[in-house]
Every structure is written in C-alpha cells, then in structure tokens.
C-alpha cells in the first residue's frame, strides 16, 4: 500500500494502481465540473483529470506548496490524478491489521474500505475505484 497525507490524516491506496507520482502543476478547468475535480492536465499527450482529495473529503483547504503532489492512478482503463499533501511511505499490511471502516453517518464511507493501525498512526484505506463515481456522475 502507498500511504499519503491529507492534513493530519493518513490514507493508503493499493500501490499496484499507482502509475507515477508528480509535482502539482497548473490545471485547465473543466466546464460544470464537480468541485473536487480541479481540471485536467496534459500527461504526455493524454488528458488526465485531477481530483483534489482534500476537497473530496471536505478537509480544510490546504494550500498548494512544494510538497503537494499528484498521484497518478490507473483505475480500470482510465488514468486519474489525485492531489494529496504528501506521499509518506510504502507499507505492507496483512489482513489481520485491517478492520472495517467505522459505521458512522458523519463519515463518507463510499470509498473507504477499512482502517488499519501502523505505528500509532491510523491509516484509512481507500478504494480508488470509488473515486470514479465522483467524476462519472454529472
């Protein structure tokens, strides 16, 4: 799993889905897009949409700084970029370490598959596929 930081929280996604990690660059905004979709970038000739995870999870809007990175992930046949505050680590998790996500109405669970503990940190495991629901629905 690849772990990354959003504000004070730690998240993790399946590393096999990750294509590359890039710095943040200016995007081109898209018409009538959801707020979390910042726009599209030119990734070596491909038009790739960029989703700001901080907006997606309604965290306090962090500023773009030198550590802001974009994780380019492959979801199905598509390529999508995720803006995060920083990439931390690559970790291996066993299934015992993972517990189901909290059943709380206050937390958006649509793309959270579980929680895991790693050296006092709580990792929130994300399902990348669910991110697409965001950009698919108009």
């Amino acid at each position: 799993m690849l772990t990354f930081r959003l504000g004070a929280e730690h998240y993790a996604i399946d590393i096999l889905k990750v294509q590359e990690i890039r710095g943040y660059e200016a995007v081109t905004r898209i018409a009538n897009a959801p707020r979390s979709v910042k726009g599209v970038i030119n990734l070596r000739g491909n038009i790739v949409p960029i989703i700001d995870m901080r907006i997606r999870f309604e965290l306090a809007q962090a500023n773009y700084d030198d550590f802001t990175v974009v994780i380019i992930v492959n979801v199905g046949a598509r390529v999508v970029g995720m803006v995060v505050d920083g990439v931390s680590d690559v970790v291996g998790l066993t299934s015992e370490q993972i517990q189901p996500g909290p059943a709380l109405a206050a937390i958006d669970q649509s793309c959270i598959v579980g929680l895991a503990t790693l050296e006092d940190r709580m990792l929130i495991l994300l399902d990348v596929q669910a991110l697409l629901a965001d950009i698919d629905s108009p």
Partner: protein
Amino acid sequence: MSEFLGIFVEEAREHLQEMEAMLLALRIDTVTTDDLNKIFRAAHSIKGGSATFGLNSVTELAHVLESLLDRLRDRRLALTTEMVDALLRSTDLLGEQISEHEGRGTVDARVVEELCERIRRLTESPASAASPIAPSTSTPKPAKPLGIEGVAFGFFDDAEATPASLATPPLPPSPSSIAVAESVSEPGLLPTEPRSNGPAPVTSAAAVAAHESSSIRVGVEKVDQIINLVGELVITQAMLAQCVDSAGTQRLEKLKAGLDQLDRNTRALQEAAMAIRMMPISAVFNRFPRVVRDVAARLGKEVDLKLVGEGTELDKGLIERIVDPLTHLVRNSLDHGLEAPAERIACGKPVKGTITLRASHQGGNIVIEVSDDGRGLSRERILAKARERGIAVADNPSDGEVWALIFEAGFSTADKVTDVSGRGVGMDVVRSNIHSLGGRVEIHSEAGLGTRMTVRLPLTLAILDGMSVSCGGETFIVPLTFIVESLRPSPESIRTVGSQGRVLQIRGKYLPMVTLHELLGMSAPAVGDAGVPEEGILIVIDTEEMRMALLVDALLGQHQVVIKSLETNYRKVPGISGATIMGDGRVALILDAAGLGRLAASQRRERELAELASAFPGATASPTSPALLTHRPRAQPELALS
C-alpha cells in the same frame, strides 16, 4: 493460427465485396468471360482459404458456387437472372458463415442447404438456362411478395434476394441502424424468414463494425512516404544538433533555417500520417447498388443509381459512421422521393428514376449529396403535420425552415408507413448522427423536380481548425466551422431583456448573448472583466438550434488543433467536444457549438424555474437538481454588474 485466420477473414470479406459489386454490375446479355473469371477467382480464393482453416460450411457453399461459375465461364451454361440472384444470395450467406466462425451470430444450416440445392439445380439443369423465367417446379422458393409478382423489371425482376439482404446490410451499430432493421422487419409485405426477425441483424451489424475498425489496409506508397519523411526528420534533427554545437556568427541563422525545415517536415509528416487514415468514399458508395437494387425491387420502382466522385477520400473513422445516415437518406429517396412508374409517366418524366450520390471536397469539408429526381417534399403536408404535432412554426416560414421540420423527432409525413420507412422516421437520428461527426445536413427540394440532401462533414475527426480564445483565465478552442463572425460590440448594440437576459443587436436582428465562462459554470475571471461586454469580444456562433453571441475576453489566434478525447479518462462534458494540447503544453478545451446551444437553453429554463421557485417559496416541487444550480450564486453578482 488465429492471426492467419484474421487475415483470411479480412481477405474473404474483400473477395465477397468484390464479388457482390461485380455481380451487381453484370448485364446478362453482355456478360464477358473476363467478368466471370474474376468472380470465379474470388469464389475460388474463399474456398481455398476456408478449406485451409477447416471452415467446412464455407468451403461447401463456395464449392457449389464455384461449380456453377466454372460452367458459366466455360460457356456450358448461359447466365440467367436467377443465377445472379442465387450468386448474390450466396455472397450474403458466405459472409454470415464467416461471421459465425468468428463466433458472431448463427447461420441456419437449412437455409444454406436450400441455397446449395438451388445452385446445384441451376448448375445441372440446362432447362433453367433455356427458360430463365420459369423456375423448376420443385424449387423451394420463399413466397414472392404478391404485389411485385408478375411485374417485369428486366434486371430487377427478383424478389428472392430481398428478405435476407435487407436484413443484413453491414451497417455500423447505431440507433438508426436499429430503426432501419425494425422498419424492415415489418411483417406482411415480405416473406418472413426465421433469420430476419429478432435481434440477429442488429448484433451481426455491431460485430461487423467492430471488425472493420480493427485494422486498415494502406497502399505501400503511403507508407513509403512516411518512412521518407521520418528519414528527413532524422536528418533535420542531426543538422540542428550540429548547429547548436558549432560556433560562429552564422549559428543563429543556421538554427533558424533548421527550425524552418523542421516545421516543414513535421507538417508533411502530419499530412502523410493523416493520409493513412484516408480512404476513398467508394468504400461506402459501393454498398448502395445493392441497397438500391433490393429496395427498388420491393417497391416496384425503376431506379438508376449514379455515383459521382467515388475517389474522394475521407477519414476511415468517418467512413464507418457515415454509412448509416447515408443508407437512411438513400432509402428515403427511393421510398418517398421517387414516384411509382405510373406516376412518373403521368408527370412526363422518364420511367426510370435517378438517384445520384455525389462526393466532393469543398474547402476543409467533404460534401456528400443524395439527390433524386422525384416529386420533392411537400410544403403543405409538412406544415400540416407540424401543426398537428404542435410544433411552433413561423407565420410565413421559408422553405429551408419548413424542410428543417422533418428532422424533428418522430416527424413523418408519409401517408402510410411502408416497410422501408416513412420520410422523417429516423431523420432526427440521421441528423444527430451527422452532428456527432461534426457535420451538418441541408435540404433542397423543389416540387416535382426532386430533393437533394447535402451532408457536410469535416475531412477528419482528429484535427480541426479552431480559433483560440481566452475567457476567465482559460483558453478555449472554438471550431472555425461554427464561427459566423466575431466583433467588438458597441455599448448601444447590447440590450437587456428582463433583468438577466442580454441580446446583441446585429444588422437588425437580435441574438441571445451569453458569457462563455458563465455558461460553463466556471468562476469569474481573475483578470479583465468580461462582465462588461464592451471590453470583450463577441463571437457569433451557429448552433443547431439558434445563432448566439458568445462573450469572451480576447481572441488569441487561429490554429489547427489535434483533438484529444476527454472521455478516455474523464467523462463527456456538455458543451465541450474534446480537449487539445497547446504549444506550451497546457490543455485547452474545445467547444461544441451544438452542445453550448443546448446548455444555454437548459440554463435558461433552469433560471426560469429558479425564479418561479423564489417567487413562490412554498413550492417545493422544483425539478431542478441542486448540482445543476451550483454555478448560479457565482454567476449572479456579475449579472448585476451589467
């Protein structure tokens, strides 16, 4: 092995097409051994290939076919119309059998056996050669449609080939092909074969289209040209590298010359690469002799099909997608445009009607015309129908406005829906198909003289000429084909309608005016203030529904842009047809005029609904979704500005 099978299938399809074209061109009285030899060779190649790959059913039919052709070319038998029909039918069946082997669709073995039997009888019995009109009594023919029986059409006097061939023209999958298939399977007029109803024709059509898009055949000279150009590119690159390394006063000059050469090379290379995708439109046109022959026979009409400009080249992607709308237009012309022979004689016209398919290049467009010399569209009937359907029509509409009505959904002026089609049934689909290709359709019609449908398409789907404009800090591309003019408005030419609508007065006409970034739901521009129209530029664009004026900050320039899909990684965006990458590597969105028109219309409705809702706060049944309204709060302050 499977890769060779793929090659065989492709070649076999080519042979079949060739056979069909040659069979259609045959004139029974003037047939030459040379023609027959060619047909024989095609059949023989299919037989040989299919035997190699163990496609036994194909081999069997091809063998029977070959025997008949062999006797024909040896002059042991004389060619009859019945044979031509049987041969045509067998090309259809062979095609289906090949599809079956690829795992798509099924072929009824009984049908094949019947056909083989028929051909064998034709091969063996000299009687049929002597009296082509009288079929042997035991022929298990499907019943002929009664209306056509007994009417002599010379070359067209068959009804047998119609049911199957009409059900299985290799049309690409699209709503209108389904519509065609449905209208064709109208019961009653034609003998219903088990194969021709149900979803089978549609699935096989889908499969065929998938097959077509998988590969492309290119002339060697086109490839050679590209290789040459790549060679030149390498030389230029070396030259540039040398320039950079070298010292001296002329270095910059040399560099400049090298860059110029690079520019020329890339342009030529681009053109050469595009040329690979270009195919002559004869690939489309060649289907029509068969379509016309079958439909004309069914309708009891005599038709001459003229093909003009078959060598005109257009993009392969377009070729595949234009077949369907064109087929529809041709069928329409046949069914409704052309009069029945009796009526034609009464009008003093030649008995034989003419349908002309014409392709040509005009500027950056390809223009395809389908014209007939039939009765033309009836103004009164279309207007009456429009009134009946409650479509708003101007008091004294121009012809063009009237003809445009037949593109309305579900609009048909046909007195009765025939088994071919009603004029207007599916015309809305034709138009939307053509629009989706970035083209448009125009109608010219004169009562008693005929109708001409003109389809204008861009040469290719991959590149377009566009005007780049900046608006709200972003760059957009407006396709040149949509731009009517652009102007810097004077304050007095802009009027307001109500509190929110603005219109532009131009040469006595009022056009609705919208601010581009407002329409696209983007935040207000950081620099400049497009809210004040006098400081921006207005681009008048022609959308499907209306003309409108689009307010942008500035025009940047005219480019050829390479279209990239937004859908690959994102999704379809209303008002945007794609994206492109600008010289600086940034992405620019390409506007879609038709979509913008719809977007503007829907936003207007929304706004009206929202106003209604705010006027009556108690009313909660507003159908507008909150998501669609999110751009409103941002848009409002600006509107107040104006």
